[in-house]
């Protein structure tokens, strides 16, 4: 009888132990993410709510001379000001979006191309890698604003084309060259213009594609060489291998990079809309209006990110589906 009881008790005990391990692990998980949870609840949420609330208010310095502010609720007036009264905001927003539509494909294609290049074995690979990732580290924050005001750069490269009469000081290629090159091929002028301006903006594009390059490189390195080997044995060319193997294998990272690029170019300080919002922020009484503007802007970002992520994820190939 006692023996029986022991046998009965054993599985029960075991089951409880497993459950408690799971629970313990879940609890440990919460502990690990606790810094974020606390920071989010105590710092971020109040900030977030304040920002939303402030965008519906006006702000005046307190009359009694103390350093406080008086907030008055004005409803959607700030939003109305931003969209309808402010002459430049809506226009800046549109040009900003156009710029984005131009930048994101250029950055994605360039970083993928460079990652494929850097993934090949060649002399001086480490050296070139070090140079290409240099802007990620160095060309941020204060350096960006210094570079924006850098008239010396233009002055030093000026004069190269003095004889030609065109003022192509900073341009590496002029669209004329390209039009000549493309004139025999039946390619639309839009494409020619796109390529030309992409090449003229190459410094900007290189500067902003560092992280994407890193992510693509990591993805490329994680593709098993055995797949390439079997392709080679079957007689596939490099071109075919790229489209049939490399491209599908890294398509999840293309999605990640697309989203990252959009967010990055939306939030970078050199972005036109961001610059405009900052300039509004430093105007008198412009703080709340700039809050409202940046909320409008943020909603646009969210919608665009969602749409693009939705479209892309339909084409993404997931090799193995784990969780």
């Amino acid at each position, binding site marked *: 009888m006692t023996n029986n009881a022991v046998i009965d008790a054993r599985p029960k005990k075991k089951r409880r132990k497993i459950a408690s391990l799971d629970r313990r692990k*879940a609890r440990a998980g919460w502990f690990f*993410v606790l810094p974020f949870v606390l920071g989010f609840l105590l710092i971020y949420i109040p*900030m977030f709510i304040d920002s939303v609330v402030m965008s519906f208010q006006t702000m005046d310095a307190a009359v009694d001379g103390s350093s406080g502010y008086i907030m008055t609720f004005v409803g959607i007036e700030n939003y109305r000001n931003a969209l309808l009264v402010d002459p430049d905001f809506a226009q800046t927003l549109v040009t900003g979006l156009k710029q984005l539509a131009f930048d994101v494909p250029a950055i994605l294609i360039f970083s993928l191309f460079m990652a494929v290049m850097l993934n090949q074995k060649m002399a001086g690979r480490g050296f070139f890698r070090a140079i290409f990732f240099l802007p990620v*580290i*160095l060309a941020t924050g204060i350096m960006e604003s210094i570079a924006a005001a850098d008239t*010396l750069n233009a002055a030093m490269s000026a004069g190269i084309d003095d004889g030609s009469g065109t003022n192509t000081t900073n341009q590496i290629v002029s669209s004329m060259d390209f039009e000549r090159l493309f004139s025999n091929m039946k390619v639309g002028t839009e494409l020619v213009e796109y390529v030309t301006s992409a090449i003229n903006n190459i410094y900007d594009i290189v500067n902003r594609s560092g992280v994407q390059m890193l992510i693509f490189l*990591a993805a490329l390195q994680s593709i098993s060489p055995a797949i390439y080997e079997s392709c080679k044995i079957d007689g596939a060319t490099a071109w075919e291998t790229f489209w049939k193997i490399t491209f599908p294998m890294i398509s999840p990272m293309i999605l990640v990079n697309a989203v990252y690029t959009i967010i990055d170019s939306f939030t970078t300080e050199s972005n036109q809309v961001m610059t405009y919002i900052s300039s509004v922020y430093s105007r008198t009484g412009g703080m709340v209006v700039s809050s409202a503007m940046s909320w409008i802007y943020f909603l646009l970002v969210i919608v665009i990110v969602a749409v693009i992520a939705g479209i892309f994820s339909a084409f993404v190939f997931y090799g193995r589906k784990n969780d």
Partner: protein
Amino acid sequence: MNAQADKQPVIKRESKKRIRVEFDRTPLKDRLKAKFLNTYFLTRVVIWIFRLVLMVGISYIVLYPFFTKIAGSFMAPEDLVDVTVRLIPKNFSLDIYKAIIAENGYWKAFGNTFALSFICAILQTFVCCLIGYGFAKFKFKGRNLLFLLVMLTMIIPHQTLQLSMYMEFRYFDILGIVRLLKGGGIELFGWNVKEIGPGVASFFEKLNILPDVIPITEKGIEVTPQGINLLNTYTPLILLSLGGLAFKNGLYIFLLRQFFRGMPDELEESAYMDGCGPFRTFIQIILPNSIPMLITVFLFAFCWQWTDDFYTGMFFSSMNTSLLVKIVSVPPSLTTNFAGTELYNTAIRNTCGLMIIFPLVILYAFCQNFLVQGIEHSGIAN
């Protein structure tokens, strides 16, 4: 069977001889032709040249602005208006560097920025590591929702929160505690709560490491009924780093999460078997195994904090705090009044930029190997 096996080397030797004879008989010209004039070799050469040109070209594009900055920094004012001077200065001078070091307080700013960036980078690396590990290896309710929130903090542009972030730390007050304490002198468990206000302030003053380097304000930290004024201290950035909310921390958390996901579960399981708790496993097993990735994240955090002018501009509004991003100005002794003033001022500003990033270049030279390594082995594509 045996005889056949014995024969094989003989055949090999014979064919070898035949090849040698054939080789000797063909003239050198034909041999070179056969070697170098086939499509395989030619395509390889073309690809090699194309790649080299492309690589060198893009390197040039990346480095050219730095070249002009470096060249401009050694020029005397005359050189900048001289049309014949392009990249190599005629009158070599170190005036700009000397003036920036002497008049803009370079070394003090350097010390402050180093302390700030180092503390923030260490904290951010560790905190993001914890958070990323929690998201990667533990299953708990609300994990996906929480991760979505992490992504949200990355998507919301920081300009959106600029005003409220400023207000948050200008009148710092978690859950209205300070307001409660300062508002009424409530007796709490026989303890006069009014005394706590300054106590809290002195706690934050202690948090502000290296108080000599950055003077807070003349009066110390100010506690008003609305909250504590934390501006012009390290505290806002430290608090943001502790919460994993500072600049680009969402990206670090994402990278680290992917990295830890790529680590085999067996590593932890065996540690659990040996009686390690999750935290000891994390410290003793996981962290030592992820050093390249940690260095990568540290490098990002350090460099981006070093050059960041958004947060530092917002939180360090006082004029007498010296940080590297604030030294960008024309030193008084160099203000000139001749034709090329504007160019010269640009050259000075560029030189400031160069001096700001110079320590980062050295750091990068040492760490760039880890940068690629860390991400390469991250299994990010899993």
